[in-house]
């Protein structure tokens, strides 16, 4: 569908906006995790150019800095709001839903205004983002209008008076700016979130985004307190670290309003009933195994056990017993393989959980064998069947130190 262009405004019109709005916008942008997609590959804030792989090809995130030519410097607040709500850019073109406006559409006017003020206050960076690399017909933007008819639901989130204010705030954030479902809900062949399967688990950059509903298998049930701590620090001693793409989410949530993080935790915890208090009985030391090949036991003792230290609750590098690890409990090995290969490096500068990248230390065969060993020793689940293909895929995705 054709949408009209909105007149350009002079750049820097909002450069010295209201400090309070800017600060609030910064915290909301932390919840929206905007920087994760929109920071440029060399780290320039919001300057765009990062390739986002999708099943339909590669999309390059736009430059959100107030540069007039290559960024959104000429966008009025109206234009920005239309993009967030309707997925249409200033010139009237359809935006691909890799930009999750199916969630951002729920954001209030006030919140969108604050985010706009924040983005306009950032330094303008000249960065012409590459053209998207999509095959026809996906490269033909107008077809997105059809996608929106199916998947862009604009009905507002009516407050649920049977729930607390905190729960309602959490729902507003999770369904809206937080766009958790973009990763944690499975998608259909058209790339829309599967209705009826909200939070049943999805994928992000090769990693599995585990289910947030009752189908999640964990060693300990998540409580609100645990989730709040995990989301804002990237770690909890009974669950382990936020790794892969979730690490950046956690680092950003650490900068958001902590009341908002707690609200998010409240809502998410409510998605899996029985969340409060119930604890699975898990022996931290795992099972005593006989007849394991000596090579893999040597690898576990010489590499993994230095940190994944069953004797203590928390080992060096904030490693926990693998009996508690969600990755190890998953039906697929995607996350276990990736965390072993790529490690956890995101918290290095500010402090937090850490893991070396073993892809340069162990061969693919060794990684496969140690990952199966851990699965056998620390869970009652069947051996994984996808380990070798996950290792091959993970190698293609490349390591990020």
């Amino acid at each position, binding site marked *: 569908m054709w949408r009209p262009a909105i007149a350009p405004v002079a750049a820097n019109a909002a450069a010295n906006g209201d400090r309070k709005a800017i600060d609030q916008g910064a915290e909301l942008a932390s919840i929206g995790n905007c920087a994760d997609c929109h920071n440029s590959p060399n780290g320039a804030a919001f300057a765009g150019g990062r390739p986002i792989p999708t099943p339909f090809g590669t999309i390059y995130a736009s430059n959100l800095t107030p540069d007039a030519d290559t960024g959104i410097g000429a966008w009025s607040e109206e234009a920005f709001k239309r993009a967030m709500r309707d997925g249409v850019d200033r010139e009237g073109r359809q935006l691909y839903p890799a930009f999750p406006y199916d969630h951002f559409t729920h954001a209030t006017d006030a919140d969108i205004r604050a985010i706009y003020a924040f983005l306009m206050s950032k330094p303008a960076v000249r960065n012409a983002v590459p053209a998207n690399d999509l095959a026809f017909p996906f490269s033909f933007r107008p077809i997105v209008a059809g996608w929106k008819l199916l998947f862009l639901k604009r009905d507002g989130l009516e407050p649920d008076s049977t729930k607390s204010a905190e729960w309602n705030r959490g729902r507003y954030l999770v369904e809206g700016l937080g766009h958790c479902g973009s990763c944690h809900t499975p998608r259909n062949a058209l790339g829309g979130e599967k209705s009826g399967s909200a939070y049943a688990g999805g994928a992000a950059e090769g990693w599995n985004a585990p289910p947030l509903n009752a189908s999640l298998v964990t060693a300990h049930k998540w409580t609100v307190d645990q989730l709040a701590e995990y989301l804002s620090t990237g770690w909890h001693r009974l669950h382990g670290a936020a790794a892969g793409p979730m690490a950046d989410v956690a680092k950003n949530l650490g900068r958001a309003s902590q009341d908002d993080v707690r609200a998010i935790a409240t809502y998410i915890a409510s998605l899996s009933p029985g969340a409060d208090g119930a604890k699975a009985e898990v022996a931290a030391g795992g099972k005593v195994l006989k007849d394991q090949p000596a090579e893999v036991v040597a690898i576990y003792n*010489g590499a993994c056990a230095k940190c994944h230290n069953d004797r203590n609750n928390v080992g060096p590098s904030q490693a926990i017993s693998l009996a508690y690890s969600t990755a190890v409990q998953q039906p697929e090995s995607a996350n276990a393989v990736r965390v072993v290969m790529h490690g956890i490096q995101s918290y290095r500068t500010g402090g937090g959980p850490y893991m070396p990248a*073993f892809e340069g230390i*162990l061969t693919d065969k060794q990684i496969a064998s140690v990952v199966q060993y851990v699965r056998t020793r620390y869970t009652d689940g069947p051996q994984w069947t996808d380990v070798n293909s996950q290792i091959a895929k993970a190698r293609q995705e490349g390591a990020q130190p």
Partner: protein
Amino acid sequence: MKVSLHVNGKAEEVEIADPSTPLLYVLRDNLQLHGPRFGCGLGQCGACMVHIDGRATFSCVMPVTAVGDRKVTTLEGLMTDGKPGKLQQAFIDEEAAQCGYCISGMVMQAQALLNKTPNPTDEQIRRHMEPNLCRCGTHVAIMRAIKRAAVA
């Protein structure tokens, strides 16, 4: 048990009691190569770094029995005919060491960069060297040494 290794261009055979022994201890205690050092044993600081098939790697979290026939290079292996290699000499000329405990790891990590990118920018050097820690605050001198070796 006996383990065969390929270290600094030579075939070596070592006798170890525990197959989980990290490569770091075998290099230091069996082969008397004191370049790689124990700083944390956790892959956090880089003092133990060696090259495995040319790739800078933490030898402290690498069980020696996992090395196989991959080629191991330590600080000593960067020398030629008993003389320091170009990067080592650059560090010596810049006096880029205070206590010097981290310096072997620094050289191994930097050498891996120069092998791939002979003339790195300051930004590339800083980002590449991020995993390596120095407590004395020799970083600025280390940057000078790496740039000196790159230009020469």
